[in-house]
C-alpha cells in the first residue's frame, strides 16, 4: 500500500508548490493511476518516493500490508524518515514513512527491497548487456563482493520472462528500440522483487500491441496482490485498466475515484483546459475521452 497524506512539495524559486496537500491511497491488489496535465505534480510524487525531493509537509507511507509485507513484517510498526523516527527501527518492519528528513542507508535499502520504481527518464552512461542491466535490480538484496545467488538468478529470469525480454537478454542496451528499452526497464523493476511497483509513464515509445501488453502485465501484477501505482498520460487505457484514478491539477487532487467517477467530461475539460467529450467504448464499456479538434484556447 502507498498512503499519500497531505503531501506538499515546493521547488526552490518556484512560483507555486508542485504538490499542495495531496492525499490518496494506492491499495494492495489494485492498479492505481495518477493522471493529469503536464506540470500537475505527477512525477513529483515519484521523485518524493525516490527521496530526490523532500516534502515541505505531509508524508508518504509505503506499507507492506495486503501483499503480506516483507517476511517477518509486523503490522503496525513503522520506519520513519522524518521527525519522530524510531531510532531502533528495523528494516523488516511493515511500513516505511517518507517525511521531511532523508532515510538512512539501511532504511533506504529496505525501502528499495519493498518498492520498485521505473522513473520517467533514464539514460545510462554506458551500455550493458540486457541481462546485466536487469540484474542491477537485485542491488538492494546484495552487498560488497557478494555474487549472484540462486534467488537472484531466479528473480532475473522470471522478471525477463514476464516483461517479454528473454529473447534479447544477450543484446546490448545500446541496440534496443525505444519499446524494448521500456520493457527492459520494467523487467529490472520486477527483478527488484518488491510488493509495491511504481511506474512513471512506462508506455512511452510503445506501439499499440506492446502498450496493451504492458497494461495487461501491470493489471496481472496488481491481481497477484501487488500495489501498482502508474503515472500515465494514456487516459483511455487507464480508464480500462485502473481500479482507482487520481486526477491532479496544479499540484492538487481534482478528482479521485473509479474511472466512471473521474472520467467525466466537465471535470477533464476543466483540468486539461481543452474541449472534449467522454463517451463509452461500445466494445469494452469503459469511458473514452475524445478531444475535439480546432476549438482549443491554446
Amino acid at each position, binding site marked *: 500500500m502507498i498512503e499519500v497524506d497531505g503531501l506538499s512539495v515546493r521547488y526552490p524559486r518556484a512560483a507555486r508548490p508542485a504538490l499542495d496537500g495531496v492525499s490518496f491511497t494506492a491499495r494492495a491488489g489494485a492498479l492505481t493511476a495518477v493522471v493529469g496535465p503536464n506540470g500537475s505534480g505527477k512525477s513529483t510524487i515519484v*521523485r518524493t518516493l*525516490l*527521496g*530526490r525531493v523532500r516534502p515541505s509537509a505531509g508524508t508518504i507511507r509505503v506499507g507492506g500490508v495486503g501483499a503480506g509485507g516483507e517476511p517477518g513484517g509486523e503490522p503496525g510498526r513503522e520506519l520513519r524518515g522524518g521527525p519522530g523516527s524510531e531510532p531502533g527501527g528495523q528494516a523488516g518492519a511493515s511500513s516505511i514513512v517518507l517525511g521531511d528528513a*532523508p532515510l538512512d*542507508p539501511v532504511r*533506504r*535499502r*529496505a*525501502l*528499495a*527491497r519493498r518498492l*520498485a*520504481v*521505473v*522513473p*520517467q*527518464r*533514464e*539514460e*545510462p*552512461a*554506458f*551500455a*550493458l*548487456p540486457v541481462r*546485466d542491466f536487469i540484474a*542491477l*535490480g537485485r*542491488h*538492494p538484496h*546484495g*552487498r*560488497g*563482493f557478494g555474487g549472484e545467488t540462486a534467488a537472484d538468478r531466479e528473480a532475473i529470469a522470471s522478471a525477463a520472462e514476464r516483461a517479454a525480454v528473454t529473447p534479447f537478454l544477450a543484446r546490448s542496451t*545500446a541496440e534496443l528500440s525505444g519499446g524494448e528499452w521500456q520493457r527492459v526497464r520494467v523487467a529490472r*523493476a520486477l527483478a*527488484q522483487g518488491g510488493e509495491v511497483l511504481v511506474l512513471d509513464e512506462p508506455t512511452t515509445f510503445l506501439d499499440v500491441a506492446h502498450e496493451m501488453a504492458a497494461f495487461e502485465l501491470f493489471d496481472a501484477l496488481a491481481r497477484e496482490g501487488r500495489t501498482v501505482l502508474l503515472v500515465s498520460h494514456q487516459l483511455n487505457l487507464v480508464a480500462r485498466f485502473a481500479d482507482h484514478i487520481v486526477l491532479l491539477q496544479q499540484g492538487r487532487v481534482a478528482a479521485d475515484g473509479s474511472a466512471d467517477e473521474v472520467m467525466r467530461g466537465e471535470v477533464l475539460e476543466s483540468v486539461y483546459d481543452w474541449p472534449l467529450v467522454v463517451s463509452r467504448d461500445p466494445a469494452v464499456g469503459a469511458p473514452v475521452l475524445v478531444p475535439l479538434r480546432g476549438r482549443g484556447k491554446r
Partner: protein
Amino acid sequence: MNSRVALLTALLVAVAIVSGLAVGAVPLSPGTVIDGLRGQGDPVVRAILWDLRLPRVALGLAVGAGLAVSGGAMQATLRNPLAEPYLLGVSGGAAVGAVLATVAGVLAPTVMPLAAFLGAMGAVALVLAVARAAGGASDPRILVMAGVIVGAFCTAAIMVALATAPEGTVRGALWWMMGSLADATWSDVRWVGGYVALGGALLLWWGRDLDVLALGEEPAAALGLDVDRVTWRVFLVAALIAAATVSGAGLIGFVGLVVPSLVRTLGVTRVRQALAVSAGVGGALVVLGDAVARRIVTPAELPLGAVTALLGVPFFVWRLRAAAAR
C-alpha cells in the same frame, strides 16, 4: 569477467614490465634482466635493475593503475566518459600544491605528497563550490564543467607561480607539469602504491554501487542508493588516488580518460571488473610509455606526460569517430 581479457591484460603487464626493465641508456636483453632479478650476473646490471629500473617500473605500474582506476570511477560516478582526474582539475590541483611547495623551496620528499594532496583537495573543494554556485552540486554535467573551469584555473595558477619563481626552482616545478618516473625510489613506490592499493580496494568494494550510479540519479535512488553520499565518497577517494599519482610522477594526462574507455570497448561492462582490468592496462600503458620516453632520444628522456598525450589523443579521436559513426 571475460577470461580472455584477463589473460590479455596479464600478458600486457608482463610485456610492459620486461620492456621497462630492458629499455634505457644501457639496453639489457630479457635474459640479462632475468639473471639480474635473480641476483646473478654483472653487479652493475643488478644495481641498474634493482636501484633504478625496478622502482621506476613499479612506480609506473602504481601510477598508471591509480590514474586508470580513478578515471574509471569518476566516469561511472559522474556518468560522463570524459570525466577523469586530469580534465576535472584534480590532477591540476595536486600539481599546483606541488609546484607551490617547490617554488617556496620546500623540497622534502615527505612534504611534496602532502602538498599535492592539499592541492587536490583544494581543487575538489573549488569544484564543489563552483558547482554549488551554478546550482547543481550533484548534477554530473555541472560537476564536469566546474572541473574544467578549475583545471584551467590551476594551469593559470601554475603559470603565475612559475613566472614569479626563482630561476633555480623553475626546472623542478616544470617536472610536475611534464610528468616523469625518472626520480622513482622505493619510498615513492611504497607511498604511491599504498594509496593506490588502498583507494583501489575501496573503489572495487563499491563496484556494485558504481554500477547502479552509472544508471543515473533517479534509477540509482530507486535501487536504494544514497546517490549524493556515494557520489562524493567515490569522488573523494578517486581524487586522493589521483593526488597520490601526481605526488609520485607529476602530471600524466589521458591515462584516466583512455584506459577505462578502451576496457569498455573490450566488452568489460560491469564497473568492478572494468576497474580491475583498467588497473592492469593503465599500469602497463604508463610503463610502456616510459620505455618509449627513454628510448626515443637516448640518453635524454622525453616528458612522460607528453608521450601519454601523444598516444592518447589519436586514440581519443578514433573513439570519437567510432561513436559518431554509430
